[in-house]
């Protein structure tokens, strides 16, 4: 009887130890994204990309010699104030070792200080405003930044469209839009272009009527209109511009990159141009392989945000392996040393400012799948 009891206790103890050790084996990474709200497609598609990368990494044995990664995702609802709540929870309560997020620059700027202070590395898949990584040395991104992106569209307007006079419609509620406007203007004006008019609006779902601003812009007779905002407003602005009789093309940045752009903008936005990180029609085998895998798993074509999420997760996984531990400082150093990482969105090298130097692509809006127009190297 006594020996049975003893065996029973030992068995229980081993089971308990086994449970505890499998728990300890898992590596927990946090993610915050806009899964709902006005920029829902950004969050959904980038987290899909992350999920695809996670599945692949775990099925190849995980990281650090066989440990699987678990991702806890929090929705920030595309609203200011939510990212800080989400990231605080991930960092303090879920005790994640790293954070992936976000696509929108304003929301990334909100969460970054929290990660920096907690010394938890943060990898943004797609925030392009320069200030995001300036928050501190624990904040990284795998995409290009707006000082570069602004010049891309300005160059495209001058060289490809031969547009000498451009009007700008900025979303003042949005750090990304304000930043991009500034960089576009700098390049455009210093290379012989003329900004004939600047108008603004409040994005994020508040303003729906842009006719007043567009009427004013129409009277200035620009050759093109630069609309560096997000896809919801871009679609509406295109519709209203066309109904007011404005025929010139619209130009935008990667904030337009969403399957909903053509849904909302319809025929009004067809034929306009925007810069982004990746074209699903790129014949590069790595891109096509990603597109196939994404379609198989999610049933839709990936937009520009999905491969960014994928690359962010892959870069982070590699950094964890290079660091050889889950220590924040070691992962941080490993991230800083990423060189020539072969990502779906291009070769990623993290520079001293913790940004990635990559090429941008210019796409022409087409409801059947955006057309690739040009690739611009930094």
């Amino acid at each position, binding site marked *: 009887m006594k020996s049975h009891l003893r065996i029973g206790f030992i068995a229980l103890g081993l089971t308990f130890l086994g449970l505890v050790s499998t728990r300890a084996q898992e590596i927990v990474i946090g993610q915050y994204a806009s899964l*709902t*709200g*006005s920029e*829902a497609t950004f969050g959904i598609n980038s987290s899909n990309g992350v999920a695809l990368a996670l599945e692949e990494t775990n099925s190849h044995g995980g990281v650090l010699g066989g440990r699987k990664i678990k991702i806890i995702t929090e929705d920030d*609802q*595309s609203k200011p104030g939510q990212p800080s709540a989400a990231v605080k929870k991930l960092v303090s309560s879920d005790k994640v070792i790293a954070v992936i997020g976000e696509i929108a620059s304003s929301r990334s700027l909100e969460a970054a200080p929290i990660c920096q202070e907690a010394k938890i590395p943060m990898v943004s898949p797609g925030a392009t405003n320069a200030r995001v990584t300036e928050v501190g040395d624990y904040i990284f991104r795998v995409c290009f930044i707006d000082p570069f992106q602004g010049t891309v569209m300005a160059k495209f307007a001058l060289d490809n469209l031969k547009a000498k006079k451009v009007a700008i419609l900025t979303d*003042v509620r949005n750090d990304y839009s304000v930043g991009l406007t500034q960089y576009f203007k700098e390049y455009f004006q210093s290379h012989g272009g003329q900004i004939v008019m600047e*108008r*603004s*609006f*409040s994005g994020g*779902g*508040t*303003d*729906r*009527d842009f*006719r*007043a*601003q567009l*009427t*004013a812009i129409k*009277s200035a007779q620009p050759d093109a209109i630069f609309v560096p905002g997000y896809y*919801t407003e871009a*679609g*509406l602005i295109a*519709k209203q511009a066309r*109904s*007011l*009789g404005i025929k010139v093309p619209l130009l935008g940045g990667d904030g337009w990159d969403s399957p*909903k752009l053509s*849904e*909302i903008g*319809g025929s009004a936005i067809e034929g306009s141009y925007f810069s982004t990180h990746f074209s699903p029609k790129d014949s590069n085998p790595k891109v096509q392989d990603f597109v196939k895998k994404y379609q198989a798993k999610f049933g839709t074509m990936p937009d520009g945000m999905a491969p960014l999420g994928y690359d962010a997760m892959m870069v982070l996984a590699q950094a964890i392996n290079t660091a050889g531990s889950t220590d924040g400082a070691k992962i941080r150093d490993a991230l800083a040393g990423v060189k020539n990482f072969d990502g779906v969105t291009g070769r990623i090298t993290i520079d001293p400012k913790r940004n990635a130097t990559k090429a941008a692509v210019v796409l022409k809006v087409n409801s059947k799948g955006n057309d690739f127009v040009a690739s611009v190297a930094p």
Partner: protein
Amino acid sequence: MMQFWQQLINGLSLGAFYALIALGYTMVYGVLRFINFAHGDVFMLGAFCGYYLTPRLLPHFTGPLAPVGVTVVLVATMAICAIIGILIERLAYRPLRRMPKLTVLITAIGVSLFLEYAGQFVFGADPKAFPELMPDRALENTGALTVTTTQVAAFAVTLLLLVGLTFVVKRTRLGMAMRALSNNSTAAALMGVNIDTVISFTFGLGSALAGAAGILYAISYPSIDPLMGVLPGIKAFVAAVLGGIGNIPGAAVGGLILGGVETIVAGSAYSTYRDAIAFAILIIILLFRPAGLFGKVQVEKV
């Protein structure tokens, strides 16, 4: 100069929406001395009604029958919103009729928040593309100015509903009962007016107008989400106050003026002040002429 006329046209069509919503605010205030803050959200529900009804109803009216189809969707939405308005009154406001006005006001805010967040839960918080009920094109032969089909439709329907409302209020028995209730509710009750019925009718009518406004707004700005009624609702309230709260033609004029001013500000170099100007107007009106442009200055006889 041309730009001024164009902005005026833009402003009038924007003002038509504010006018339609303001009519509901002003009617409920006139009859009940109570500001129904949930009104802006009935406007939102109207837009969502249209979103769900259009794919089901419109395909039955093809070709030349298309305008009939649009009218059917509009009328159906107005009916549904009327029922919603009556339900809200029955469930949330009627039990509080004997309470101080502040209580009902807070309840109204609660109903508004409830509709918004329940809407986010039921419909999803992301913006949805409103189906095309009518083609949005610039009309020909308007010279240097651009007038779109949706602008004309919004303005025309608003005018029609305004005329209809004035007819109901001035020429029907229910309308007379509404006016009696607004004048003196105790005396009206003593004269045999069924207070409950008249109040329900008032809410129904106001909500139907808000529903119509929702459809017209969604036709012009085809991206809808559960929080879309917040800002237009508040601005329509300002319009009602501007015109004189309780005064029907005042609400319509207030709406048009507000739409015009907002558009001119939005088209200027100070376009981000477009929302601020509405509230600046509210403060100024309350400071200098609280009764509004058409309101009667209430003299209290001591």
